[in-house]
């Protein structure tokens, strides 16, 4: 292949290195107005009254809105959320009113003048407590809400989804098992921390046509949500996402767009802007949900896992419109990448008075694997076998069955494991850098499937130009992962023209075709397949015209370097530029007209799982498998852990762009390292204690380990050129591999993240 499999340079590179790419916050529109939000200081409180008189009197204030003006709830999977609180505030920081003013400063000053009277309610600040019958209810009206039928809320409780998986007969196996191991783990809330905070601009024309510029991963999903919330038909609502400065899931749904739309509706054409401060970003953007996990495993003396029983309790926060799906995804992945006959899982999404949980890179997976992969090492040690052996015995191989009973046809897990064991030199020891330090190695596997509706669709359009160049239109968003480049490469490969001849356009619901969402590591696979189909459609049209032009059967023609060429007589050819606008005949007549290729794609045959048991033979489109191994050095005097080296190997089906793919893995490893060692959104009585970079550290260049990145390629049958997604799965094994390495170095088994120096030191001293 010419372009797929090559490290083609980023198509957005020049714009990004010159600082000329315009992100939403860089857009300057004339007569712009600015919004600011009044936020609840209480985690749980009834709103008794809101007095906006003083704020309204401030010069430059245009309008003030309160939640009770917009009572319609919305949400992706469970409609439980308003853009501003209605009746009561459910987390500290929830918007209760908003101001629109001539300047940001006036808007903020007006917010300070709004007086809100609250009746403070007892708050739910722990998901396990929140499940108890006597817990205060965060959503007493849950029973009246709408939800997608694949979720199971329990009205009258704080449980917004109870996912069940019942494979085989786990309780019976536990009665007779030779070894039973039981462990509890806790993963705290963390934040996504894109360097670009959330921002949006809304503008309504006199004829009611609304334009929204949003820093969002999924313009079509935002359009749908806003259309439903504000009763605007889809043909009168345009969402543009010109560039996204990092998402990691935080910009998957709609966050702040709905706050500015009411203002835009009354602003007589003036645009209204709202940008989150870094503090807002920490407190009021989606957080990664906290998880309490209990994992019980039955195993025989040879190391074969006979049964697992899992209980996952998710701290979903005040609204779980997205979070219910995290509980579900974690549930059907709960066996991990292992072939286990008996699986019993209960995964609960629980409302709390915490910031709103939502999707974070590999949602559900990074959290549950922290427990699954440590648990395996604990079992291996008990049985006297190595961490590699227990994974070899139980790891998923073709022919195995997943937790839901799906028979696996493709899994490169064992190849990945062998590669990582070799690259990290798992069985060798290296000398610590000082006598007060110790070194250790750890390994972890991981898997993930795209967690999305069965019918999540993609589309693409390719337009050929009369000089042989082309425009590719998709709404897959390049949020940094490099999708613009990868889509271009796929198109270039099918059309056999160089990537420089293709200009890709994205992120405009009026002009680029439908894409469900840029989430779930589904873009290379799904949007890539739509691009592949669109280009084949264009190719088909070109070949149709060429067989008339050349008098050669279509089956004997192919695209090669900008020409339609005979496979048999290579000198018989016609350039695609000559055919781009149709086929012209010698008498001056012409047929067909411009070549426009159309591609649509829905992953085939994904079926709902059984409602009672969670079992299903094809509930997800594919599983991505991989392994990471790490070497750490722990300072015995301070407890500080330094990750020295990480080896990673994933089965990606097909490497489309080696350099960009490495970048995804490297970024995921370092993000995983941050969550493993120091990242935690610290919450006390619902208050975020560390909403700044001073107090919430993310990894810097100093934290970067040496990284060895490898891939195996067992093709995905329906993926473009066999590719499947990997950007999220890459983060899944990072934290547990570090935990296992810390144990190897120190004998300390930490079952809570992050594994800070203080925790490691305290544990070593207690030993």
């Amino acid at each position, binding site marked *: 292949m010419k372009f797929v499999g090559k490290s083609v340079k980023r198509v957005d590179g020049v714009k990004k290195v010159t*600082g000329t790419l315009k992100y939403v916050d860089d857009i300057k529109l004339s007569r712009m107005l600015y919004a600011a939000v009044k936020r609840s200081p209480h985690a749980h409180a009834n709103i008794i009254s809101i007095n906006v008189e003083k704020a309204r009197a401030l010069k430059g204030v245009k309008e003030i809105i309160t939640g009770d003006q917009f009572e319609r709830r919305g949400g992706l999977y469970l409609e439980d959320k308003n853009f501003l609180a209605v009746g009561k505030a459910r987390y500290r920081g929830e918007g209760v009113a908003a101001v629109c003013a001539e300047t940001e400063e006036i808007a903020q000053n007006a917010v300070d003048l709004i007086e809100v009277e609250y009746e403070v309610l007892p708050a739910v600040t722990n998901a396990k407590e929140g499940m108890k019958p006597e817990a205060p209810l965060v959503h007493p009206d849950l029973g009246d809400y709408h939800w997608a039928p694949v979720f199971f809320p329990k009205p009258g409780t704080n449980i917004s989804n109870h996912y069940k998986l019942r494979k085989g007969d786990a309780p019976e196996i536990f009665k007779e098992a030779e070894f039973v191991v039981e462990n509890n783990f806790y993963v705290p809330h963390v934040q996504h921390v894109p360097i670009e905070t959330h921002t949006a601009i809304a503008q309504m024309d006199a004829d009611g046509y609304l334009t929204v510029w949003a820093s969002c991963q999924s313009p079509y999903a935002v359009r749908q949500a806003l259309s439903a919330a504000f009763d605007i038909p889809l043909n009168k609502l345009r969402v543009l996402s010109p560039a996204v400065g990092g998402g990691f899931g935080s910009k998957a749904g709609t966050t702040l767009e709905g706050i500015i739309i009411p203002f835009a509706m009354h602003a007589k054409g003036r645009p209204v802007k709202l940008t989150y401060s870094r503090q807002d970003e920490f407190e009021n953007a989606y957080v990664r949900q906290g998880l309490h996990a209990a994992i019980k495993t039955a195993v025989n003396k040879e190391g074969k896992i006979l049964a697992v029983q899992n209980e996952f309790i998710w701290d979903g926060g005040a609204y779980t419109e997205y979070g219910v799906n995290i509980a579900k995804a974690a549930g059907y992945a709960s066996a991990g990448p292992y072939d286990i006959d008996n699986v019993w899982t209960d995964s609960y999404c629980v409302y709390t008075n915490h910031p709103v949980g939502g999707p974070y890179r590999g949602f559900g997976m990074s959290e549950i694997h922290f427990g699954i992969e440590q648990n395996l090492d604990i079992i291996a040690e008990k049985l006297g076998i190595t961490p590699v052996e227990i994974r070899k015995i139980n790891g998923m191989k073709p022919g195995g069955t997943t937790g839901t009973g799906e028979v696996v046809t493709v899994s490169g897990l064992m190849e990945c494991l062998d590669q990582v064991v070799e690259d990290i030199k798992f069985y060798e020891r290296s000398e610590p850098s000082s006598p007060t330090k110790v070194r250790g190695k750890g390994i972890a596997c991981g898997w993930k499937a795209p967690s999305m509706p069965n019918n999540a669709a993609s589309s693409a359009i390719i337009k050929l130009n009369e000089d042989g160049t082309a425009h590719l239109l998709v709404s897959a968003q390049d949020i940094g992962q490099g999708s613009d480049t990868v889509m271009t490469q796929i198109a270039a490969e099918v059309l056999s023209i160089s990537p420089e001849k293709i200009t890709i356009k994205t992120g405009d619901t009026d002009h680029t075709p439908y894409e469900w969402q840029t989430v779930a590591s589904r873009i290379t696979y799904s949007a890539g397949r739509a691009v592949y189909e669109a280009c084949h459609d264009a190719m088909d049209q070109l070949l149709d015209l060429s067989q008339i032009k050349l008098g050669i059967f279509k089956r004997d023609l192919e695209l090669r370097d900008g020409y339609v060429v005979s496979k048999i007589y290579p000198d018989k050819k016609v350039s695609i530029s000559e055919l781009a606008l149709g086929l012209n005949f010698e008498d001056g007549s012409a047929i067909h007209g411009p070549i426009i290729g159309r591609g649509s794609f829905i992953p085939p045959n994904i079926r709902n799982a059984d409602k009672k048991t969670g079992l299903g033979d094809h509930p997800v489109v594919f599983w991505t498998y991989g392994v990471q191994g790490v070497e750490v050095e722990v300072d015995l005097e301070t407890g500080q852990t330094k990750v020295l080296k990480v080896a990673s190997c994933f089965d990606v089906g097909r490497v489309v762009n080696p350099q960009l793919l490495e970048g995804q893995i490297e970024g995921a490893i*370092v993000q995983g390292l941050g969550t493993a060692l120091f990242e935690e959104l610290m919450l006390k009585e619902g208050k975020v204690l560390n909403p700044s970079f001073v107090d919430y550290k993310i990894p810097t260049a100093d934290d970067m380990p040496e*990284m060895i990145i490898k891939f195996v390629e067992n093709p995905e049958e329906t993926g473009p050129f066999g590719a499947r997604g990997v950007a999220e799965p890459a983060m899944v094994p990072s934290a547990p591999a570090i935990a296992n390495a810390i144990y190897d170095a120190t004998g300390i088994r930490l079952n809570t993240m992050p594994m800070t120096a203080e925790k490691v030191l305290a544990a070593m001293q207690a030993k």
Partner: protein
Amino acid sequence: MKTEIHFTLNGESIEHEVEVNKTLLKMIREDFDLTGAKEGCGAGECGACTVIMDGRAVNACLVLAVEAEGCDLLTIEGLSGDQNELDPLQSAFIENAALQCGYCTPGMIMTAKALLNENPHPTETEIKAGISGNLCRCTGYKKIIEAIQSVADQNKA
């Protein structure tokens, strides 16, 4: 309240009236439409707003615009040449895929530029230390370090 200041911006002499409480970042973004420098935190913690002031990398969100009086300012927009030819660092970032979402990229490149001006042959440790005030959430830093290293190596040659 406004005051008049004089400075050089990307090689051009400027006379400008600016509010005394305006930050340098707001001035270059709002008054000059140079939006390459980004506000990532507004508190000098992320480096996304880095520009070069008299040869030194500064967080433009922490500097008042009036402090630019008499200074030579270089922003990312001034780094490439008149014919759009890229600075070697910009080319190296593309070549090494040292960027993903691109939001930290202008600040990262400006920090690297100042670093290389001061120390044309930094070690890997010096590069890591030099960019430790610039946060990137996407790349894991490896390719950024490699990009800067490649320019440093060119300097040697």
